């Protein structure tokens, strides 16, 4: 296996309740890259992110996924997280009564335990929180509130990126992070993502629209349609989609 490859997905088939949604996905991601996955509604974009993160609601029926040399599909969702896979949820879940502080502390210390490290002291942890909050200009008050409870759409997405900053993943999957964001929130979230970018990590941006890609510049753009990646190209593809919509691609594929 090439050491330069962070994620290698081959012929991935997966579905939910017996219905196949992903019908043979192939994807290779190297450190430092940003990949955009676009496509019309119902093409399988969110399923792909769920399957990579190990959501037990989905069943993988065929294919492989290798994550920096590890057999990703054999890992539990929490071990995938420890190994550096992060999913920014399209619909972040509310957990009433559990403060962000307690939640993040449990997450950070679970990861440290996985790597046989001592739990972070309360002082060090709070320092880390403060530092990372700045990345997405997250209010201190939000951090002391219950996880996502009563957060606005924009606050929820900022909170996702804040968690991403805390966990320092190798691969971040942003699932429709732009949905429900106004222009200011979009800017803050994107700047946060860009700040976290390095030559060692990679990002998959799943989006329906070009808009987000004005802020987070992709190196590659893939079009997902009917459970397959039907086209891959450079950033110019996103602009073309913005201009012409998805119909011409649909037509091309459906004619085949």
């Amino acid at each position, binding site marked *: 296996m090439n050491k330069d490859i962070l994620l290698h997905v081959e012929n991935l088939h997966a579905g939910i309740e017996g219905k196949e949604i992903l019908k043979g996905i192939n994807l290779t991601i190297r450190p430092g890259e940003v990949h955009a996955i676009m496509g019309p509604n119902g093409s399988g974009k969110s399923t792909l992110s769920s399957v990579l*993160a*190990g*959501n*037990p*609601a989905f069943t993988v029926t065929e294919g492989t996924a290798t994550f920096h040399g590890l057999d990703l599909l054999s890992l*539990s*969702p*929490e071990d*995938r*997280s*420890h190994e550096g896979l*992060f*999913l920014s*949820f399209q619909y*972040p*879940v509310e*957990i*009433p*009564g*559990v403060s962000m502080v*307690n*939640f*993040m502390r*449990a*997450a950070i210390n*679970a*990861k440290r335990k*996985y790597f046989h490290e001592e739990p972070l002291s309360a002082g060090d942890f709070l320092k880390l929180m403060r530092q990372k909050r700045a990345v997405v200009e997250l209010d201190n008050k939000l951090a002391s509130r*219950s996880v996502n409870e009563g957060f606005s759409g924009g606050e929820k997405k900022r909170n996702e990126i804040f*968690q991403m900053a805390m*966990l320092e993943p190798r691969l971040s999957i942003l699932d429709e992070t732009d949905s429900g964001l106004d222009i200011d929130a979009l800017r803050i979230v994107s700047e946060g993502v860009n700040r976290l970018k390095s030559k060692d990590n990679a990002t998959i941006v799943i989006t329906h629209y070009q808009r987000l890609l004005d802020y987070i510049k992709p190196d590659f753009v893939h079009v997902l349609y009917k459970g397959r990646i039907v086209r891959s190209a450079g950033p110019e593809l996103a602009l073309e989609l913005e201009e012409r919509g998805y119909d011409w691609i649909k037509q091309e594929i459906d004619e085949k």
Partner: protein
Amino acid sequence: MQQSDDQIINNATDGEYKYGFVSDIETDIIPKGISEEVVRLISRKKGEPEWLLEFRLKAFRYWQTLTQPDWAQLDIPPIDYQAISYYAAPKQTKAPESLDEVDPELLKTFDRLGIPLHEQKMLSGMAVDAVMDSVSVKTTHREKLAELGIIFCSFSEAVKDYPELVRKYLGKVVPYTDNFFAALNSAVFSDGSFVYIPKGVRCPMELSTYFRINAAGTGQFERTLIVADDDAYVSYLEGCTAPQRDENQLHAAIVEIICEERAEVKYSTVQNWYSGDSEGRGGVYNFVTKRGLCRGDNSRLSWTQVETGSAITWKYPGCVLKGDNSVGEFYSVAVTKNRQQADTGTKMIHLGRNTRSTIVSKGISAGYSQNSYRGLVKVAPDATGARNHTQCDSLLLGSNCGAHTFPYVDVLNPTAVVEHEATTSKISEEQLFYCNQRGIPTEEAVGLIVNGYAKEVMNKLPMEFAVEAQRLLQITLEGSVG
């Protein structure tokens, strides 16, 4: 999906009971069975005055006319009241003058339970009365409290040293005629704690009683009496554990509280009696009558309970709000798993004007358990301006358990405002996956979510207890999810 969800929950609620050990202590235990003779024997063993024996006998005779209540949402196997020993005491020839005279095995037991009786080792902010089986072993910090005029001692000592106070208040809030188990307790009660806070005194430390059943085949029937005189304040904690045994053990306690003018009492319980194994074998039957009387105007009584143990719980800590503007509160978390059954709630009896009560009940059910909230809010004809708010939430872990709500509302004054809110929820797979994705394993996630759900109640516990109670919720539910 349903099945894996249930498996998850089952594994997480299947935690081991870590207080299940038995201490090897020589015990003075009377033969099984109950009769007037037994009642007299208990009274004699405790060297009680005649009036107390009379009280016991009256209660016993009344108890004989009663049958065990069966109105609760509980399936109680028949109890043979003649197969229980009603008095067991760690053998000790005379009362210990100092800690050095206490059986080291006893001290070890309480150390193991995390209740050190050595004063120097004690959490500075807490005084403890440790009760093993039928008697009080040791009460700490007594001298310090005595300087303020606070009486904190075992019930037996109170009978000897403060007979007038005990006689004045005993059975005034929970008369022996109250119910079957109250009558039984009044006949055979062994020990417990007595607290008196004099006028105008704020008790500077948490008072705590730690109950431990050790001997086999015995019942525990303790009695606690707390009196807060005018303008007094006290926060009182109660903890309980028992060894792991295959047979069931009966625990029928009474707690009576009296709040005089502007007095405030906070009573917190962390109940962790042995709950039986996963098949429902063994465990404590916890049939308890707890009630407080807010007799004075502007007085305040608050019950907080975290109920995680016992095979069967039957318990309704209540407040009789007699004084004008008095306030009653009830905050409860009741967790049931495996085959546990709980029927618990409160009674708020509004008698005075502008009396207010708040009820927050959080039930958590897992495994094959049954968890019921039963509560009465009663507003008497003269209770003008009475207010009650009840919030009653149920959280289900898995699909084989049951949650039930039985609210009784009885309003006889047209100015009263009574509100009842109820919700039922499950831990969603989305919540668990969200936690997993952030690296938090499922068991820990369930612990977090459950603690979050119970937070409103946990926040009411004194600091010293809150951490332990949080851990307890987590441990209790270990194995319920997997």
